[in-house]
């Protein structure tokens, strides 16, 4: 079965409190400041038919109102 990886991220302009928290925590932990920290989801799976992945993302894995997704299928 082909192995696929789906990267799901909050759409630009959506407030991401987890990302903000990471941004604030880094200097406190003694790291250099980071920018544009965004926290999303990673879904990895083996599928029988990689052609279904887009529909699976639309219907289940991502919410298009708030999230973008990117599908990567291993050769």
């Amino acid at each position, binding site marked *: 079965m082909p192995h696929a990886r789906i990267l799901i991220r909050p759409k630009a302009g*959506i*407030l991401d*409190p*987890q990302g903000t*928290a990471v941004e604030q925590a880094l200097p406190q932990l003694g790291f250099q400041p980071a920018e544009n920290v965004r926290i999303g*989801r990673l879904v990895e799976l083996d599928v029988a038919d990689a052609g279904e992945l887009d529909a699976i993302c639309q*219907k*289940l*894995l991502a*919410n298009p*109102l*708030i999230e973008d997704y990117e599908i990567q299928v291993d050769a």
Partner: protein
Amino acid sequence: MVQFPGTCDEIDAVLAAERAVGVGNAELLWHRDRDLKGVDAVVVPGGFSYGDYLRAGSIAALSPAMGAVAEFARAGGPVLGICNGFQVLCEAGLLPGTMLMNLSRRFTFRDVTLRVEAADTAWTAATSAGQELVIPAKHQTGRWYAPDDLLDEVRGNDQVVFTYAADDRPNGSSANVAGVCNAQRNVVGLMPHPEHATDPLTGSVDGLLLFRSPAEAARV
């Protein structure tokens, strides 16, 4: 009351409805059944349907029972989504918008004061516009969000049903929204839990007004 695995406020919702409309008048509907048993109104209660895995409400929205609820809603039947139920109705496309994690990133429980913005829905007919209700809220993913164009549309159609009273913003939702309805005004969702505000022994009883509303709306 639709029951998914992981739903946990369904018994509370049954009790609340029975306090409003009489014992014996509430049924539990199992998520795998499409049969709504001829009920007059449907409540999608709170909890963590399917563990809230992936996104709150996302998997429940696709269950057989929700298919039947969608048909019921399209036919004008009154449907109320509470907390996780609100998330489910949004995910199912029956209500506008979607839910994001609270700005505090934490689960927060507390009594909040809600302002009724629209008293002409199936679930607010027993209230009056501007009325303030004290109802507990408890959630981690309750920041209702709509992109600007959708928010304008929702506001333009008077679909905002509840807002959090001025200083009481538990989650950071768009325009301080606590609850919305669909364009037909028969489907309502809200984050706070009216079923937990129906017994004087446990706190406020303001939530009873919501459970009395469908009957009242039907009379008018």
